[in-house]
């Protein structure tokens, strides 16, 4: 456990600095949300209808940003060898990396999501659910994203590959999360979508570390 915490602290310090860290993700998020009214027209009624969906689309895209470097940098500079020969198994290494990615990127984006939805015209009463769903969705994004990052290890132009691997895995949380928000906005029961989102996140947290470790072993060997 202490090894896990030691590694988590290091990963957090790296994630904070990795390509601008949370600031970059937040700026990117703000840019997408700002571009939308320019592209789709500024009619408030129309924007309000698509606000929950757009806030989730921006969330998914912003979660992709720093994934490429999650394992790649350690792979390139030899640190992954060191991590593989430590007291914690590679599964724990993958989990620590994904968790740090969530804390440094997913959590700040979850704070931004309700703000963006409200700015686009969604009712303020949606904010608590928007925050909770983005927080849980961020966990799913970080762990499935980590899986994609590990699978793309060692390939040229890995960033693009990560996006291609990961976006299909991002589809279920986007469907469930944005669906729950839409349902609440029009007065339908939102719990089913929210619970499915939580179940997907739990599955990702449980299973992705196993796959990350296998992908890392494959890349090292």
């Amino acid at each position, binding site marked *: 456990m202490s*090894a896990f915490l*030691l*590694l988590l602290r*290091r990963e957090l*310090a*790296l994630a904070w*600095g990795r390509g601008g860290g949370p600031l970059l993700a937040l700026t990117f998020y703000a840019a997408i949300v700002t571009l939308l009214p320019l592209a789709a027209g500024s009619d408030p009624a129309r924007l309000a209808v698509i606000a929950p969906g757009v806030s989730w689309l921006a969330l998914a895209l912003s979660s992709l940003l720093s994934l490429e470097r999650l394992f790649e*940098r*350690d792979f*390139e*500079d*030899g*640190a*992954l*060898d*060191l*991590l*593989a*020969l*430590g*007291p914690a*198994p590679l599964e724990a290494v993958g989990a620590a990396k994904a968790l740090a990615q969530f804390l440094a990127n997913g959590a700040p984006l979850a704070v931004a999501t309700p703000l963006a939805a409200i700015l686009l015209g969604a009712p303020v009463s949606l904010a608590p659910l928007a925050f909770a769903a983005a927080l849980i969705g961020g966990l799913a994004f970080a762990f499935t994203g980590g899986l994609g990052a590990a699978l793309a290890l060692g390939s040229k132009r890995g960033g693009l590959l990560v996006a291609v691997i990961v976006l299909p895995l991002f589809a279920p949380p986007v469907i469930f999360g944005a669906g729950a928000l839409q349902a609440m906005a029009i007065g339908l029961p939102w719990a089913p979508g929210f619970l499915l989102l939580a179940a997907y996140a739990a599955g990702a947290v449980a299973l992705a570390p196993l796959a990350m470790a296998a992908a890392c072993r494959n890349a*090292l*060997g």
Partner: protein
Amino acid sequence: MIESLSVRALSVRRGERLLFAAFDLEVKAGEAVALVGRNGAGKTSLLRAIAGLLLPEAGTVAFAGKAGALEADEARARGLHLLGHQDGLKSARTAGEELDFQARWTGGSQASAAEAARMLDLTPLLGLDVRRLSAGQRRRLALARLAASPRPLWLLDEPLAPLDAARREQAGELMTRHLADGGLILAAVHDPLPIPARTVEIGA
């Protein structure tokens, strides 16, 4: 912990090419082995196969302690240092942060990291970002990790290449001390090691 390493009938293939086949090696506590061979003979691959990072095509790598054979994964996770071509140091972090993390990750402590830094004259560099260090300084920082955490088996890949004569001597003292404590050293080298070592050729 690890008292002996035995490699039996090891074959390693990289892609289409068979690097070496039926390679045998025995290293005992207190012994240093210099692994020599032409470029591309498989020295690095052998070290990585012993460390468990690379799956050999055939053969076994076994570790034994005082009480007999050790479970290989456990022995690797607690008893082995691999110092490769790359030192795994993050250029954006300070030398002190990196040494501290690497030492503690491999079983050392903050105090042992500071002590190792002092031993290798690295203390004045600890506040600098790793990117400001020279190749030799980075290698000494990586060597300090070995000194800072007590793991018996050292697998070294060209450990002295970027070091000047005085620093090689210093690294030699570090190795001598490790051997005196019952450590094992297997080093892939082109230049001779600064300590008495048995030479084993690979891919002859």
